[in-house]
């Protein structure tokens, strides 16, 4: 394929540029081969597989509960969702009822994790465009979130917190107040962040009307999550395919509306992420207020041996639908685990969306899709 590209480039007098896999703006080890006519790209073809660790294959050799730590590494910026999706799929396979308190705890940690992930997402986008300060603001806030989650489960990044049947630890004493204190400081900080970067004229000029993805294209490429909602498609698993304790809470699904330009441009996707953080704050407050008493882990058999069959569990991760399709053959190890991750589809749209863009805007496109390498390659 590369040779074919090169031949075509030579014959058409085009330029071939290689970006990645070691490049600070590709958000992990992804490689793009850019065919350009001067500064204008004809297309940028993503090459993936530089972080293929064979996680799906490893699942086949492990008992059901032992695979949970591996799911952390599927999406290290938002590992709670990755835990949650797998746990849900196995629970459906086993037919286990999860206690109410565990479901609430899951929602709280997931939404905290969504804030942490989006902080990096929007911060890194600003950094790629050239503004380093918002990224450091994001990192600073993320450290506070890491502290909270570390107090809860002992890990900063790879949590292994949401297990099959429930969660691993209950809230330690005083964590409730700490989360509330964080939320109280976070809201004014979001306003500061907005003043610093979201309505910043330079960012708006760089992102508005750039890399427009219309609703039809977004749907046909299978985009999910903030990327899909940025194109104006009203779809959120938390509301439309309710799971866990989400039906108990009131929140808005944030949509792109062409805030500063065309519907579905990079700026819309940026804004959707900023707004989703505020919605997450709302959900966490409601969940903390209504946190029921009770067990944190459902009744599990000593050895998990689901009957023959298959189940699909999907959560609305920070990067959209993250689904696990688990097939059981009746033994204590899964026959097959398929992970459906949003970043893979988001990478596939790069070739389409990069047509006619300037080379410098490719960075904006990749950053606005907020892809993460292990979710692409798994």
């Amino acid at each position, binding site marked *: 394929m590369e040779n074919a590209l090169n031949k075509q480039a030579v014959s058409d007098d085009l330029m071939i540029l290689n970006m990645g*896999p*070691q*490049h*600070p703006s590709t958000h*992990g*080890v992804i490689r793009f081969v850019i065919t350009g006519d001067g500064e204008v790209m004809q297309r940028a073809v993503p090459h993936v*597989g*530089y*972080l*293929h*660790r*064979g*996680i799906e*294959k*490893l699942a086949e*050799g492990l008992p059901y509960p032992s695979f949970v*730590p*591996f799911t*952390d*590494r599927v999406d*290290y*910026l938002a590992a709670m969702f990755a835990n949650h999706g797998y746990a849900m799929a196995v629970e459906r396979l086993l037919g286990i009822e999860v206690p109410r308190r565990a479901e609430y705890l899951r929602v709280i940690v997931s939404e905290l994790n969504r804030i942490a992930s989006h902080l*990096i997402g929007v911060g890194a986008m600003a950094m790629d465009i050239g503004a380093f300060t918002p990224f*450091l603001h994001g*990192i*600073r806030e*993320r*450290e506070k979130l*890491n502290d909270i989650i570390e107090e809860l489960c002992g890990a*900063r*990044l*790879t949590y292994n917190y949401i297990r099959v049947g429930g969660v691993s630890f209950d809230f330690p004493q005083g964590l409730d107040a700490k989360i509330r204190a964080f939320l109280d400081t976070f809201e004014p900080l979001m306003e500061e962040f907005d003043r610093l970067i979201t309505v910043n004229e330079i960012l708006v000029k760089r992102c508005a009307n750039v890399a427009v993805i219309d609703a039809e294209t977004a749907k046909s490429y299978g985009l999910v999550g903030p990327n899909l909602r940025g194109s104006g498609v009203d779809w959120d698993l938390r509301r439309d395919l309710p799971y866990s304790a989400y039906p108990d809470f009131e929140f808005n699904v944030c949509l792109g509306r062409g805030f500063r330009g065309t519907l579905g441009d990079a700026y819309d996707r940026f804004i959707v992420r900023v707004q989703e953080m505020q919605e997450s704050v709302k959900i966490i407050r409601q969940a903390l207020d209504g946190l029921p008493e009770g067990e944190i882990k459902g009744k599990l058999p000593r050895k998990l041996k689901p009957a023959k069959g298959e189940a699909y569990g999907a959560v609305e991760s920070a990067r959209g639908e993250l689904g696990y399709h688990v097939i059981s053959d009746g033994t204590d190890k899964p026959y097959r685990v398929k992970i459906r991750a949003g970043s893979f589809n988001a990478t596939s749209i790069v070739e389409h969306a990069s047509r006619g863009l300037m080379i410098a805007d490719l960075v904006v496109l990749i950053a606005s899709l907020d892809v993460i*390498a*292990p979710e692409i390659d798994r």
Partner: protein
Amino acid sequence: MVEEMNSPRVIEAGLEGGPGQGAVLWGKASYLLNLSRKHSLWYLLFATACCGIEMMQTGGPRTDLDRFGMVFRASPRQSDLMLVAGTITYKMADRVKLLYDQMAEPKYVIAMGSCASCGGLFQKSYSVLKGVDLIVPVDLYLPGCPPRPEALNDAMMKMQDIILSEDWRRKMTEKTEPRPQMGRGGILKRA
């Protein structure tokens, strides 16, 4: 810096005079060179997986690496230290070798996290390199999955100690032991 020189380990350098008197710094040329090298360690921004996030956090406001004179560079040609932060797959392995070869001497490598040290959680995977020391010489191994920012901070300080204690001329001329080469589709195994 003054404290470093007064420490018992160092006897070949010193500082005479005080503030406002026009102080004189004396010492062996190699020591003074090492001192300046140690305090401007530029590391290659090479984040492949989870450890990369902790590397970002380490460069962030809490565990500020800038105070050691460490700045991240995106290009291997400008950096002295390669922080291999994350899993290296076979597909990525020859790129790592290429990046290492592009760095200018003297150069150092830290294998951050258990994946880069030995394959870690992905020991049994068919596509993961079982330790980056199979393709490039490693100066420091940092365990953890992923290591905390404090651990990376400590590793950086240990790296500084290594730099201070060695003869930079020997580092420039010494021949590194031959490493197994990446064959096309070949699978590297520890001897």
